[in-house]
């Protein structure tokens, strides 16, 4: 061994001097177990969690070795399905010193009771695959190595989606493991048309990414566009689907999310049935849905699970809440410092009396309250849950009350801010919630300069931006504009299911009818 190492060191120096040629030469397995092991050692041997277990197959004592990463593989399977069966090759199999059947067939067909076995001749593939959890099996005298999938990723159990809880609906959320997630989807929609195309993304750290769609519904142009954009991703690592989202979205300067993320398989499934494309990334429970339209952010799966009348009413409530969350404080500023004549006399008087003695103008007052609410919310989010909750109560009630008592803010301002904050909680999607919260400050500034005119200016600007925005060539504000009468059944209202027999027009699906 020692001599060999020296030899290897020489080789290493050679590699350094003439890297490319040597690498391409030495990438093939030689067939000599000890040499190959040496190469592998050179590649990944510095890792303490790489385990090499040498063994002999059967009575002929063919040298072999399995290599695996500690913790990534199921040790039980290695013991039972690989080691013990390889080692116990019985006599009758090697009659006349001749392996019957040949060694390769014997191993793959008779010995390895593992579901997924692949062969490779490349050391590079071998090592990379070992690093992501495969067990490598090298047999002396064979130029092929076997890669055995006994991976046992450390996954958590399937739990309810944390970010989008529902009262009624499946209590299933995606997990971090891609194959679990695709399995969840398949479980959820048992159709052979559900297609899952795998890609590898990330130039340094390879991640599996699955593009899911329903064959026969999805618009092929859209699918092509999604695939192209994914293939264009060029970054060394994608730790979360948020990376994918940001790298393939249409307009990265827009404050609005142009791809929806969700933890819920049912949500993905229903989007797929509308002709959209889902993107799942290994290592994150957040799946992406593209293209997205603005109204999707204000819809919850529950709108469909409940009967249509409450579904519609709750949906409208949500639109109203969005409006309040966006414009609440700015309207208060506009009315209380520009257009006192527009509000009812009694309200004007009570606002005036509640503002008596408050040292700040409404804008500053609103900024103080809004910023402190945002701080509270952020703090509540970062703290452990029980602490976070009590912080919310302490912050919201006590600080607000104390601020009023101290005369820093007026009681009406506290009401406005509280209503605004509560309204913003009704948004079923966190990503759009952030956007609305951010834009709220922009309107507040504008309305402090221009009053209602500023609010209208902002509205025009917002609409101008939204009508220009597209998500994968689908206008962001579909189906509201352009008018599509059929699609409006599922916009502000949620029509009875029996009336929604067609898929959204704006998706240009292959199969228009929901059968």
């Amino acid at each position, binding site marked *: 061994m020692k001599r060999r190492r020296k030899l290897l060191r020489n080789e290493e120096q050679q590699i350094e001097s003439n890297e490319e040629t040597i690498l391409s030469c030495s990438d093939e397995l030689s067939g000599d177990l000890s040499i190959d092991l040496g190469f592998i050692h050179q590649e990944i041997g510095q890792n303490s969690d790489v385990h090499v277990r040498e063994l002999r197959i059967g009575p002929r004592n063919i040298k072999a070795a399995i290599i695996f990463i500690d913790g990534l593989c199921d040790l039980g399977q290695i013991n039972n399905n690989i080691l013990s069966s390889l080692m116990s090759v019985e006599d009758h199999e090697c009659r006349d010193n001749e392996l019957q059947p040949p060694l390769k067939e014997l191993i793959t067909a008779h010995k390895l009771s593992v579901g997924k076995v692949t062969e490779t001749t490349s050391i590079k593939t071998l090592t990379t695959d070992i690093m992501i959890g495969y067990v490598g099996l090298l047999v002396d005298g064979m130029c092929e190595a076997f890669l055995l999938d006994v991976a046992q990723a450390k996954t958590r159990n399937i739990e309810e989606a944390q970010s989008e809880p529902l009262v009624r609906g499946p209590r299933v959320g995606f997990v971090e493991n891609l194959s679990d997630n695709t399995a969840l989807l398949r479980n959820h929609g048992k159709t052979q048309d559900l297609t899952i195309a795998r890609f590898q993304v990330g130039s340094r750290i390879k991640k599996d990414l699955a593009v899911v769609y329903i064959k026969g519904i999805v618009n092929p142009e859209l699918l092509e566009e999604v695939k192209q954009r994914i293939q264009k991703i060029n970054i060394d690592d994608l730790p979360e689907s948020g990376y994918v989202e940001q790298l393939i979205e249409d307009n990265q300067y827009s404050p609005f999310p142009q791809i929806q993320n969700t933890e819920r398989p049912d949500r993905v499934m229903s989007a797929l049935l509308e002709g959209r494309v889902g993107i799942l990334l290994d290592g994150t429970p957040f799946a992406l849905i593209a293209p997205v339209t603005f109204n999707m952010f204000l819809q919850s799966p529950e709108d469909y699970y409940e009967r249509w009348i409450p579904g519609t009413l709750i949906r409208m409530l949500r639109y109203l809440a969005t409006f309040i969350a966006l414009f609440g404080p700015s309207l208060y500023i506009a009315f209380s410092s520009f257009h*006192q004549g527009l509000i009812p*006399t009694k309200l004007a008087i009570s606002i005036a009396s509640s503002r008596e003695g408050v040292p700040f103008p409404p804008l500053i007052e609103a900024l103080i309250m809004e910023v402190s609410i945002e701080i509270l919310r952020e703090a509540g989010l970062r703290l452990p849950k029980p602490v976070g909750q009590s912080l919310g109560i302490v912050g919201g009630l006590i600080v607000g009350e104390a601020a009023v008592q101290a005369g820093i803010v007026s*009681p009406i301002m506290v009401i406005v801010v509280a209503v605004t904050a509560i309204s913003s909680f009704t948004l079923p999607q966190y990503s759009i919630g952030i956007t609305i919260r951010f834009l709220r400050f922009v309107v507040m500034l504008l309305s402090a300069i221009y009053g209602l005119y500023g609010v209208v200016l902002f509205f025009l600007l917002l609409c101008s931006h939204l009508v220009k925005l597209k998500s994968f060539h689908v206008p962001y504000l579909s189906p509201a504009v352009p008018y599509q009468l059929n699609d409006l059944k599922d916009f502000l209202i949620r029509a009875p299911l029996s009336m929604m027999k067609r898929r959204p027009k704006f998706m240009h699906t292959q199969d228009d009818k929901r059968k």
Partner: protein
Amino acid sequence: MKKTSRKTFTLGMVFCINAILLTGCWSYISIEDVNFVAGAAIDAEKEGKIRSTLQYIIPQTGGGGQSMGSTTQQAYINVKETGEALEPIGWETTLKREGSIFGAHEKIVVIGDKLARKTNLEQLVDLYYRDIDIRGSTLVFVSKGKASSTLESKEPNVIPSFRISEIANQQLSTRMIKPTTLIQVLGYMESDSSFVVQRLSSENGDTQLDGAAVFKGKTKKLIGFFTKKEVEGLNLITGDSKSGSIRAKTKQPVYYQIEGLKSKIIPHVKSGQISFQVQVNTDGRIAEDWKTPLNLFENSDLKKVEKDIQQQIEKSISHTLDKMQNDLGVDAGGFGNQLRIQHPRLWESVKKDWDSQFRTVPITTKVEVKISDYGMIGEKKG
């Protein structure tokens, strides 16, 4: 091209935002710094000057639970100033009290009778139409005596202007006229037609709606008053009333309560001769009956009362008409308007001096009264 345009766009945006932020907030005014005017009164003063009284609302400090202690505090303050016209008076006022005058919540304008008699109303209220804040729905009144005293109240926590406007808007009785708004007055004045405005009178700090003031269309000056009784007649002609009561001509009081009132002025033109018929249809109930010999269960007695009420209404109407045609000599009941609608061409020829023509126009009345109910008590038959 696209890149440069985005850059230009961003630059433009930055410029705009900078320019605005650096200078901004031109029209900003804090709500607690303005003086809400609840009502205004205009009186005549010596040497042709006028005296304006503005009723400011004083916001009760510390709303909610803390306002318990402030019950003794008055909710308003009347700021008085004299001057040639309303505009300089307004500026004079700002020398005395902090905060600008804010008229958007002004509910009433009271004009003193002396002033209204000698000054053209169009000139007086011109400011109210030009001012962008003051609403067209602000009510116009004329006061008996000093206008400023109608804006006083002894009760704490009551803002007299609000009280008056509420009384007028509810218009519960036939003894007050339909409230006249600034915008209506404008319409009357532009078309040179005569009109009536509610009159207010004040006694010992109590203001009440007391009759009506009649303005002549041509001069836009006050020319006379209707008493409460005459206002009732006027309301019966125009039908602009929801409820009220009429006393039957009996020894003991018997009162008819109007529940429905419909009136119609029908112009007749026969060979150039204009005449009118006033048709009044009313239904209602007996509201009070001081033990008269009437038995309301008897239809004949009921008819008797109906007939009686009918005569009373006719009498009331003719009294008012008499005052209009003979004393005041103006059309304050909208007769001309009906003529304009029915006979537009004729109207074009007579509209110039309609008020003087109106003096001699014959007017007949036709009244129908229906008593549908007499309340919870009645004498049983037999």
